[in-house]
């Protein structure tokens, strides 16, 4: 039965000029998936769907349940409840649990897990049945990942990047209905990671693949994903395009997880909020005590010499500076708080200088002050540079 499916489902109708892979890929829909391990709930009624041909980046800190969710989709783990649909077919749900070998979901795990006792060709052909066009398919997918002619090599004779490409080719060879990439570039060095991110992203687009990229790295999520879903403690906290998630984080926690964040206290009055930095425009109406998200790159430091029209009350003292080449970070003592400011211009201030602080950014995002408690409770912020009044 699975063999019959394999033989027919992925093959294009004769004479169809459309890109081949597209026919194979399907949408993914998760309904109320939940799971506990030994009394600890790792997934809370997760609902998530991805349209056919789109890439979703599932972003979250380690231990948030994202890998478990992917293993449930692949069939390597059984959920306590909920449904997994790929295309029209329910793979897991009440009374249904399709075995992983019958799901036709490509998985690229944290470990490349290339079979060391098989050649590159043997690895790629592993998921193909005894079909007559097996060798042709191996050649085809190896070409896709720029490894044409590597069939006879052994995996341990390849570089890390090449091994990763073989793993991609192996996952693609059986024409899966969707791809799961679980921290696929974690083991690679930075340079290679950036290169492969771009390559794989282009490949997924060219194939029209439905894919989920699991990662804890927000840069990777933003680069790879058409959309990003942020996960924390077994909940999906926000779902949106990369710019939505970065620009309008759903909570202070999301804000500081996807990037460095300062939070400045304020009093909201509709479209504006009064803060020690002055009256700022907000993107959405705000009222009462709020915390305003200020990204470090939206702060400009001005010395009296270069100064201009600034609210004189917004002054602080530069405590420390870090020069990174392309950017410079300043920590500024501002009242009781320390603010992080980042600029791509050469700094004109020095440690110890008194500076004026100016907000130069889009309409600000304000959270009810009570929301900051959540940040403090879960507050594992990702970079030590990020600061908040909550500390």
């Amino acid at each position, binding site marked *: 039965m699975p063999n019959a499916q394999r033989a027919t489902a992925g093959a294009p109708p004769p004479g169809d000029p459309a890109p081949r892979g597209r026919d194979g890929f399907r949408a993914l829909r998760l309904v109320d998936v939940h799971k506990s391990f030994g009394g600890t709930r790792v997934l809370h009624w997760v609902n998530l769907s991805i349209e056919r041909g789109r890439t979703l980046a599932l972003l979250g800190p380690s231990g948030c349940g994202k890998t478990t969710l992917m293993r449930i989709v692949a069939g390597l783990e059984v959920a306590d409840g909920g449904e997994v649909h790929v295309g029209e077919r329910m793979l897991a749900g009440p009374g249904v649990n399709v075995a992983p*070998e019958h799901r036709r979901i490509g998985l690229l795990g944290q470990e490349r897990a290339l079979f060391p006792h098989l050649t590159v060709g043997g690895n790629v052909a592993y998921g193909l049945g005894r079909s007559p066009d097996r060798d042709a398919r191996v050649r085809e997918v190896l070409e896709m990942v720029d490894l044409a002619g590597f069939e006879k090599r052994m995996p341990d004779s390849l570089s890390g990047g090449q091994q990763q490409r073989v793993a991609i080719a192996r*996952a693609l060879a059986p024409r899966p209905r969707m791809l799961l990439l679980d921290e696929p570039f974690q083991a690679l060095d930075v340079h290679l990671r950036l290169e492969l991110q771009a390559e794989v992203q282009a490949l997924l687009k060219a194939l029209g693949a439905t894919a989920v990229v699991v990662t804890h790295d927000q840069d990777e999520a933003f680069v790879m994903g058409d959309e990003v879903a942020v996960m924390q403690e077994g909940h999906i906290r926000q779902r949106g395009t990369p710019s939505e998630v970065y620009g309008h984080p759903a909570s202070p926690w999301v804000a500081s997880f996807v990037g460095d964040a300062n939070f400045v206290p304020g009093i909201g009055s509709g479209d504006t909020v009064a803060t020690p930095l002055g009256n700022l425009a907000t993107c959405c109406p705000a009222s009462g005590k709020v915390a305003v998200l200020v990204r470090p790159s939206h702060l400009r430091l001005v010395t009296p010499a270069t100064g201009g029209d600034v609210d004189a009350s917004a002054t602080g003292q530069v405590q420390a500076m870090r020069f990174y080449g392309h950017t410079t970070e300043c920590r500024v003592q501002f009242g009781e708080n320390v603010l992080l400011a980042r600029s791509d211009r050469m700094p004109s201030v020095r440690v110890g200088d008194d500076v004026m602080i100016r907000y130069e950014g889009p309409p600000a995002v304000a959270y009810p002050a009570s929301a900051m408690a959540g940040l403090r409770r879960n507050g594992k912020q990702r970079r030590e540079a990020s600061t908040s009044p909550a500390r």
Partner: protein
Amino acid sequence: MDAGRLFRVWGFGLGLFFAAPLGYLVYENVRLRSDILDILGVGRTWGPLGNSLLLAAAVSLAAMVVGTALAWATVRLDLPGRRLWAALAPLPLVFPTFVGATAFIALLARGGLAEQVLSPLGVGTLPRLQGFWAAWLVLTLFTYPYVYLPTRARLRHLDPSYEEAARVLGRTPRAVFTTVTLPAMLPAVSAGGLLVCLYTLSDFGAVELLRYETLTRSIYANRLFDRATSVTHGLLLGVVAVGVVVVERWLARRRAGGFAATSDRPPPRTNLGWLRWPVCAAVVAFLLLALVAPLATLGYWAGRGIANPGRRVGAFALDAAGIATSAASTVAVSAVAAAVTVLVVLPLAWLLVRRPSLSASASNLLVTASFAFPGIVVALALVFWALQVPFAAVIYQTLPLLIVGYVLLFGAQAANAARAAVGAVPPRLSEGARTLGARRWRRLRTVELPLMTPGLLAAGGLVFLSVMKELPLTLLMRPTNLPMLSADIWDSTESLFLAQAGLESLVLVAASGVLTWLLVLRRSEFA
């Protein structure tokens, strides 16, 4: 002459020393004009050679099957009492095979446990346990841990990602087992199988007690009156043993790079449902046969001996004072042999780790190849050499020559462990001590020796254990007035003084059990 040069000369000499037994047998063959073709052409060679090969193949195969099955069952199946069976399964390792043979002979002997149980059922005298199947059974029961231990370690640490990847790529669990799990286990299984094969080829005690005509038995039987046959068979056995190692190395090299190990994910377990009860019963039955039966029967005979102190002769005679003396001298001899062996191979180990060179590697090759030599071949070479060379007869059957024999036999083992010991001292630490002003002697005393001590103790412990369990070399080369437990067990069993043999065996098994725990099992996961 500086130390490095001295070490190199020492290492070179060591290589020659370890190659000497086989070289000497070649020389003897030529000197005695023993017409190899003539001896080979006669049935008296093909018989023992064929028997040796057949037994080695059958035992290796059975041990690989049993060892792999037990390892897989205890790691991957949800058997009740899994951890207990896993911890018990390696224990038959503590029985030297001649003690195992003794136990099974004693089990079936007149007045033994089997007779006690079966006679009410109307079964008369039991047949003596002997021949191919007897040797096959006993050797398999007491050598399979050599396969079980590495295979279990492999399975426990095999990264589950490989099998998961195979599942996701569309293979059924059964297909995943044959295409991924089995190939991943294979290096461990075949390395263990090689040890079993060598062990069986060189085994003398079990086949002699169980009357199965192999090369070792022929070497022993012909050593006095048909020296040419004995020497030819010795050479043949040595060549076969080395050949087995060479073939395994060649196979190992052809195998591709390894599967990655993991430590953070527990191995996946298959839920057997009701099937787990019969599988568990099979595991328990096997352990009863391999562990409980021999211990029970040795204990039974020892107990009967203790209960009948008056008897001076026969199956129930027991000479407890003699056993104490024997145990004491066994410990003393083993300790001396262990210390001497480690001291002899240490310079070579140092050379290999700190000053790698072609000559050091060549010497190392000769030393490690000697690992394949059966004890009886080494003994034969030394005995004939001592009897042949003028003046050497003076040291025949003296303690020094016995120690030389042990060094030759177990040097390879010690060399491996000693290399690990030397490796435990990073050169940077010696350099650091040097920049702090410590001279050679002070560096050795304050930095290098303290760091090497655990490794050297382990090396010595391994030799100690092996010497205690060694039979043929001890039997042929010990001074006539030096009691050794292994040789005593042998004599007692041959004379059917089973009470005596039982108590002696228990003492040896207890001592070997403690050492095996400290040196082998404690280092695995059973601590």
